[in-house]
């Protein structure tokens, strides 16, 4: 009994402690909702509080989606000053729901574009503070053990050597992966782009549901190669993991953003935070080993380590192709759903065809056979086939099916069933042809 009473006492004492800590409504508190890890927020918080005396940065970590939902649900009594995350599409959603406050930053020295992507929202609702590019990250120990060559381009990942060794985050789950897929589609065109994506996807080991799942798997050596945003690789290198990274030539550099939330309780503090982030002092924080993001102020690169990638001068990053944000916006849901229905949820079938086609190629390399070559080509075309054209994907009817417009068209569920059935049939036919080809070629 005595122990129980002591336990109860201890618990209520702790309760008192917790409630006391909860009541620190300090003056000059700036609240930010962010998807960034502690390793990113801590150095920025320290530097910001030093640069602006008397201010306290209250960081609420939420994943991007939970953050968006949180702002939506709490809009009536908003207590958040800033939203701070990577994915531009999350900011677009918030802007569309009128949850952001327009602002004109006073910081100077920041150009209009990084690569081909505008750094700031054209309507002034959100602002890029760091640039990130997509590329290929791999684990050196894994690569050595499995004799993987060094990848350079997306197409390399479609080679037989990489079968079952590649990982990606689902574009429907990761705004930045979505932009990579969109960049490939815009760079190579709708049909050719999807062909590249599916050939690569045939080698996927997994399609993860969160962005960080990919670098995590590569870091621990569970997967050899990952399609990731650059800083995941750079910060892993800085922590000592045996990983390498390369930017393929068709990629896109996109900004990570910050925005003031509509009806922010501490508007002045929110503005001060944005000004700090965009100032040279704030931009320099991005160079820290645990962060390793690309500053948007070109002058700051003077203080970066020698091998630091610079999107403003690096010829490889400089020739990145243009990116049409409007086109991307008009077909976001269609592209994501197509990827999910044709790749994510049918990965096993897609991998089986791809494996068979790799085997055919190996057999043909030893002894050529025209009939087998033709059958394999047909199988490849079946895999690459798409249920919708580029024009259909961006059509208003399609948007209505996903967003729920007043026009009566097909429901999202119906489209998904159709697309899944389309993929299932084509992959089955392709597999049959590939196996026939294999018999002929052997």
């Amino acid at each position, binding site marked *: 009994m005595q*122990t129980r009473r002591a336990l109860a006492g201890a*618990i209520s004492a*702790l*309760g008192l*402690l*917790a409630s006391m*800590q*909860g009541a*620190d409504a300090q003056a000059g508190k700036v*609240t930010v909702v962010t998807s*960034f*890890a*502690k*390793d990113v927020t801590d150095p920025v918080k320290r530097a910001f509080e030093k640069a602006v005396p008397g201010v306290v940065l*209250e960081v*609420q*970590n939420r994943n*991007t989606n*939970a953050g*968006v*939902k*949180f702002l939506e*649900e709490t809009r*009536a*009594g908003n*207590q958040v000053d800033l939203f701070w995350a990577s994915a531009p599409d*999350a900011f*677009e*959603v918030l802007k569309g729901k009128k949850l952001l406050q327009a602002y004109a930053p006073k910081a100077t020295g920041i150009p209009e574009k990084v690569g081909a992507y505008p750094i700031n929202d054209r309507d002034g609702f959100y602002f890029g503070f760091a640039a990130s590019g997509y590329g290929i990250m791999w684990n050196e*120990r*894994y690569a050595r053990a499995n004799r993987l060559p060094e990848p350079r381009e997306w197409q390399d990942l479609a080679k037989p050597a990489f079968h079952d060794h590649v990982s990606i985050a*689902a574009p*429907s*789950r990761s*705004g930045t992966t979505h932009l990579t897929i969109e960049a490939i589609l815009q760079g190579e065109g709708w049909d050719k782009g999807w062909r590249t994506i599916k050939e690569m996807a045939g080698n996927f080991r997994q*399609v*993860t*549901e969160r962005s*960080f799942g990919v*670098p*995590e*798997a590569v*870091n*621990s*050596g*569970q997967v050899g190669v990952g399609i990731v945003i650059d800083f995941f690789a750079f*910060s892993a290198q800085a*922590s*000592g993991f045996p990983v390498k990274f390369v930017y393929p030539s068709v990629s896109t550099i996109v900004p990570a953003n910050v925005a003031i939330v509509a009806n922010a309780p501490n508007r002045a503090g929110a503005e001060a935070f944005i000004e700090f982030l965009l100032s040279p002092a704030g931009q320099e924080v991005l160079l820290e080993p*645990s962060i390793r993001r690309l500053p948007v102020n070109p002058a700051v690169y003077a203080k970066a380590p020698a091998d630091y990638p610079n999107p403003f001068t690096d010829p490889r990053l400089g020739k990145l192709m243009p990116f049409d944000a409007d086109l991307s916006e008009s077909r976001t849901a269609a592209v994501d759903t197509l990827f999910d229905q044709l790749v994510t949820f049918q990965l096993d079938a897609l991998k089986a065809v791809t494996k068979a086609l790799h085997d055919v190629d190996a057999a043909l390399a030893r002894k050529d056979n025209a009939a087998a070559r033709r059958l394999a080509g047909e199988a490849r075309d079946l895999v690459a086939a798409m249920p919708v054209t580029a024009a259909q994907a961006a059509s208003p009817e399609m948007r*209505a099916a*996903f967003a*729920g417009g007043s026009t009566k068209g097909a*429901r*999202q*569920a*119906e489209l*998904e*069933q159709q697309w*899944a059935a389309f993929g299932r049939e084509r992959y089955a036919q392709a597999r049959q042809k590939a196996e026939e080809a294999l018999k002929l070629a052997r």
Partner: protein
Amino acid sequence: MRGATPGQVAAAALIAAFLAVFLVLPVGTVMYVAFTEKGTGAFTLVNFADFFRTELFVRSLWNSVYVSAMSVVWASALALPLAIVTTRFAFRGAALVQTLGFLPLIMPPFVGAVAMQLLFGRNGSVNLLLDEWLGFKVPFMEGLNGVIFVQSLHYFPFILINLSASLRNIDRAMEEAAQNLGSSGLRLFRRIVLPLAMPGYLAGASLVFVKVFDDLATPLLLNVKDMLAPQAYLRVTSIGIADPMGYVISVVLVVASVGAMWLSALATRGRDFSTTQRGGGGLARRQLSRGEAVLAWGAVGLILLLVLSPHLGLLLLSFATVWSFAPLPDGYTTAHYARVFGESSTYIANTLVYASLAGAIDVVLGTAIAYLVLRTRLVAREWLDWTAMAALAIPGLVLGIGYLRCFYGVQLPGGQPLATLWIMIVLALAIRRLPYALRACHAAMQQISASLEEAAENLGADKARTLRRVVVPLMTGGILAGFVTSFSTAAVELSATLMLVQSNSDAPLAYGLYVFMQSAAGRGPGAALGVIAVLLVAACTLAAHLVAERDHRRKGGSA
């Protein structure tokens, strides 16, 4: 039994109101979307037709049923030996085994997954060593079988705890009567002991089934997406898409879970598991011969090694410098603990407060609901049970969003929204973990003979006094099992918490873990926090066991 007293009606009404305000209402405001047409918002059932027309969803449904059923089988295989050895035999270290066997339930989010992959993954320690020595790998963590493997390791404690509590409650007289009639050994166990322990086993097994059915973390960790819970999650959490299907799947999950509970209730309906004698220390504990002891220790050791390996991995990870594509880390350091040391005290204090309050609320509600269901004839009393159990099927995120939607508009006198108070986190945790405590309390009450209460009432005690002086003391084991399960699983809950935490000073350990585990450099500190969480919960569990044992002995002595 007689009709309901006003007190019982009032209690039922209170509980119903609590469940309505903190479960049905918040979840309803989010899930009603399942019944509306996208765009117009008109009522429709077409979404459910779409569900059954979609090959992926139907396949997911069957996969979920298969995985849940197989997990129950394997979890039983792990739990039965541990439960029997520690309750039926004079086995030294029984308390230790009970505590250790309970740890797998506390798998901190994210880090637990990383540790599992580093041990059992395709290039985990085990497979790297197998490949080096024998030239082959075992796909422990692939596909549906991988899910079954991980889920069995993760959730078998539900069966262990509830079955052990039940075994301890069996009246020794039953066993002795059977022995006098010539039964012994396996036959005695099969015909007498196991059937009498059925309420505990079923409580545990049904929890495992429903929990596996509704769990999304493990399938997602293994990248298995064609199961129902991950399908719901993936859809509910896509940014900016107003898709009713996620909620449709959630409704299907709720219906299926409640259905499973109903089936397990049918299995025990109309049978009497209660025994009258109490406090005598339960079953006779047989002495083990030397050979048997070696056998028992061997079996227990093997099982513990298997089920605790994720925690060993976690421990290694927390001291590792870099651990990548290697059976063991490259080097060891204590720097991760130094890094989390400063901030973890707030997290620890918050976790203890939240989880113990949630656990306390859960056992009170669980006992009350079990009492109302089993001992009264109130109309629709089972609905209290089913509603509470439905919480298992509600994704934490949905509950979190519902809380914000319902309680953020409610202003406190100071102008602060109600939803920003830390007590809301406690309530969300209590609702989410209530099913665990409820099943344990329900099983415990099934084993108490109503004649004891009738005796007390005949001697002049009123209902409340009977409950306080007779029923609750007799249920101590079950209540404790319920508290421990609710407490420890609440201590590592993240999904609803992530929605409701408003500031770092209100954050529990799981949230602290989350903010570390999003970067490469945060893996070590995250693992260190995970180890702290596990140790913390283990210490509390052990303390609870010790308190209960002393209590038990004291009562046993005075009886």
